[in-house]
């Protein structure tokens, strides 16, 4: 059986102790679900002297809705935990479309929402949809907390705007207005266990009375260095009023922003074709959600 290089493991019960462990080590790694970190350590892609298990920090294991309806997901909350919570809180059901396609049941039982974001894989499945939800991330250090929007937080492939002495503590998602539909569509080869070749997230809000589009968000994943929103495409959807958006135009605007690459999973050409397909399907499905009487 493969073994990992030696490291020290700590599971602090409070943030103060956690920060001390971090500052005492030269190359610490945060351990939440481990489904990425442990694989990387086994493949010798990551070396660290300290593995800091954050599952002992009870404040990070919670899902909470604040008084103004903002959703706060602690850094140690697993995908399964969030999936279950969403089932009981159907107004958040679009989140399920991101969670469902990640790994397997066993993976989702361990992998965390924030772990997926902090991994900052260009093909990560949580970030695109959360970007359309205007989500932000809270990062804690001994000096205090700071909150960053996702596009400020994820700064490159595998890179986040947090230092080695900081701990990402929670994900904040503002309350979704009523009459909002959203979906994340991921394209892969098989029905499960896939790294996205293309990911598209769409969120559309309409006015209750007039059915005119009041809000539009669109983000793409796996086709740029980081997941990004596409403001021009969003504008196009916004300006469609109460009519179904012109998918040809929306798709073209998205393709202008995408920079898909050739790799062993897919060629850039195929990715471009799939961006078009996923954009159309995502917008259509979101539209159908809204028409379905949300």
């Amino acid at each position, binding site marked *: 059986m493969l073994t990992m290089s030696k490291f020290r493991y700590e599971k602090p019960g409070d943030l103060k102790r956690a920060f001390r462990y971090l500052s005492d080590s030269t190359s610490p790694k945060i351990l939440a679900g481990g489904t990425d970190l442990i694989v990387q350590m086994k493949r010798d892609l990551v070396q660290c002297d300290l593995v800091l298990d954050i599952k002992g920090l009870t404040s990070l294991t919670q899902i909470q809705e604040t008084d103004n309806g903002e959703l706060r997901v602690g850094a140690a909350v697993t995908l399964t935990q969030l999936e279950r919570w969403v089932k009981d809180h159907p107004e958040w059901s679009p989140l399920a479309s991101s969670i469902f396609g990640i790994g397997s049941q066993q993976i989702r039982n361990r992998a965390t929402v924030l772990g997926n974001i902090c991994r900052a894989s260009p093909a990560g499945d949580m970030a695109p949809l959360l970007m359309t939800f205007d989500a932000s991330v809270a990062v804690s250090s001994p000096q205090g907390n700071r909150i960053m929007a996702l596009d400020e937080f994820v700064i490159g492939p595998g890179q986040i705007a947090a230092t080695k002495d900081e701990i990402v503590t929670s994900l904040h998602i503002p309350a979704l207005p009523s009459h909002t539909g959203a979906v994340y569509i991921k394209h892969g080869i098989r029905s499960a*266990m896939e790294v996205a070749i293309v990911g598209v997230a769409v969120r559309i809000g309409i006015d209750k009375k007039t059915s005119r589009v009041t809000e539009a968000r669109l983000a793409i994943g796996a086709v740029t260095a980081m997941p990004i929103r596409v403001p021009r495409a969003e504008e196009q959807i916004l300006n469609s009023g109460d009519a179904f958006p012109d998918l040809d135009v929306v798709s073209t605007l998205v393709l202008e922003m995408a920079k898909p690459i050739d790799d062993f999973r897919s060629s850039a050409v195929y990715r471009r074709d799939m961006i078009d397909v996923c954009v159309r399907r995502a917008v259509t499905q979101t539209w159908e959600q809204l028409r379905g009487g949300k």
Partner: protein
Amino acid sequence: MNNASSPFHVVGKGVPRVDSIEKVTGQASYLEDLLRPRLLHGAILRSRIPHGRILNIDTSRATRVPGVRSILTAKDFPKTFVGFQMSQANKPPLAGSKVRYIGDEIAAVAAESGEAAREACTLIDVDFDPLPAFFSVDDALAEGAVLIHEDKPDNLSGVVHKDFGNVEDGFDASHLVVENTFQTTSVVHCCMETRGALAEFDSRGRLILWSTTQFPHVLQEIMSRVLMMPLGMIRIIKATIGGGFGSRQSMDSVDTVSVYLAKSTGRPVRLVKSRTEEFISDRTRYPMSITLKTGISREGKLIARYVNILTDNGAYNDQGLAVTTSAGSKLTGLYKVPNVRIDAKVVFTNKVWGGAFRGYGNPQITFAVESQMDDIADRLGMDRLELRLLNVNRVGDITVAGSKFHTCGFVDCLEQSASKAGWHKKIKKQGRPQGTKRYGIGMASVFHTGGGGISPHGGNFSSAFIKVQGDGTVDLLTGVPDVGQGSDTVLAQIAAEELGVRIEDMRVHAGDTGITPATLGVRGSRETFVAGNAVKLAARSARKKLLERAVTMLKTDVDALDCGDGFICVKMSPKYRISIAEVAGKPQFDGIASAFPMGVPIVGSACYTDPVSGFSDSATGYGNICPAWTYGAQVVEVEVDMETGRVKVLRVVAAHDVGKAINPKSVEGQIEGSVMQGIGMALTERLVWDDNGRVMNDQFAEYKLPLMPDTPEIISIIVEPGDPHGPFGAKGIGEAAIVPTAAAVANAIHDATGIRFSELPMTPEKVLREINLNGGNT
């Protein structure tokens, strides 16, 4: 005593597998579960360059790792090779002067822990003089290409030429001649258990080698020659094996290396490949480029076939020549065709070396043949099923290569699979657009061995011992390793039927050269037929002794007796009976059953050699080289997403001629498993290399095996025309069901989209590219 509708008590019933309790409780011991006192762990250092001379190996840093007990390089081995056919093998256990692919074994370490062994490997320094490397057959064959093996000019591992009839005359006489080229790629067995070995020398210097091998007795012979030790000093014991599919037919460096690590340390050494190692260094299916030219009469009768095959052998020899020869030879028996010529080249490349993989070249050639048959039917304006039925093989036929069919279920397989799938109704749905999805239905046939046949290791044989205990239970000793295909159970059923005991009374001991009598090994779907016959004969000889004893107890003649369900009874009055336990263990003292009543244990033994197979002319290859040919047909229904190119297999109807199903549930299981492997080969599975010859998808995350949500509905139809030589009429099914699946899927995709794919796998990207080239989603 009997069920009136079946003459058999045990045979023909889907009894639970005899090893299922151990497996379902986690008790079964696979290789990595085995523990020996003072066990050391082995690890192998593998090449990171695809081709180069080894200038120097420095192990000094590695020896200093605490816990390291032995480090070996090529100089610690005799001049010996690893593989299947020793006359062709050219893979040394550890690289001598050269490495020839990324993954090639260079050095081996035994240490107190796997961690230490692997760490030591990383500290072994190797100096290379890199050489140009070739990753395609064309590059390796190009003029002036550096030789991968200095003694193999033109980088040729071998050539094949076979001529039956007269293809020139045949093509001249043809109304229509079609020629197409097809391409298949490297597909990996992906046994869930990775390969391993545990070697130990006892205090007398005798070797015990626990192995995942499909060929314990052949491995024993090879080890005897490698170690220059007598056969009796070598014992090969199979552990519970987690899959084979042909990969475990050949030896691997792991076997020889673990033995020498054990020898050099004087301690048992266990060496198990990691999954990554399994992907980059274990056998694969041989990729083939197949150019097939076929001549047909106006009415649709096949007249001539010419095939030219280029096989990518990989870096070392295993069974490339045999697999290629076998592939070509299938042309002579998949439908009736009077003129066949086969030309082939087997070419070295600097990639992982191929080996036997379920179907043994037949899936590749059948992809070509059956894709082309659909094309031929369309050109002639014939229904695709009708064309096949027109050319179907039948009982009594002798093919142009000399294959004979004592029984033949081909027609039944074609008709029943088509009928069950609703072929005639559904074929009219072709191409009718349904939104962004198109429905298609396709079929393909298979002609394959169901009883092994001519082999490079001598006769197609097996032997068996039977011991009847005093309580009427039975020990069956067979050399056949159950690799998951269910041989233990089938052989137990055959023995039980012949002896008249219940399946619960059977115990199977298999694959231990110190105890079980020799069998050739698991290949060519042979064990039900060959080992089954051996077991039946052994059981019969034990049964004879039981009956002779029962005669005195029941006071009647042997001919008047019948056995079944654990009893021996008088045929005319079944109530007048005695239990086999009583006969076998007639108490001597105190009413306790004896293990050897009357002082004589009841045993049976037999050796069976296939009486059928042989070359009439070994120069041309003419002859009936298999004792029990089988046929089959599969009908596949697909849905193609015209926007993404993703193909969903909806349903597979698979009809296979198995002679007689000893265990119908097991037959279904073999069909279902094979079909899923065929779907993987058709749609998603392939190894991907970068420009430097490194495998990029060396994990399950990126090597795309079908997963449970991808499973279609699979309907198995068991066709039973019997067989005059098979035990209870049975023939094998271990491989046949993987053979036609990729072709059937390709034909269904063609039916749905009008696009003919000649290259596997038909990934969504490739499908979409062709859809777009052919006018898109119109």
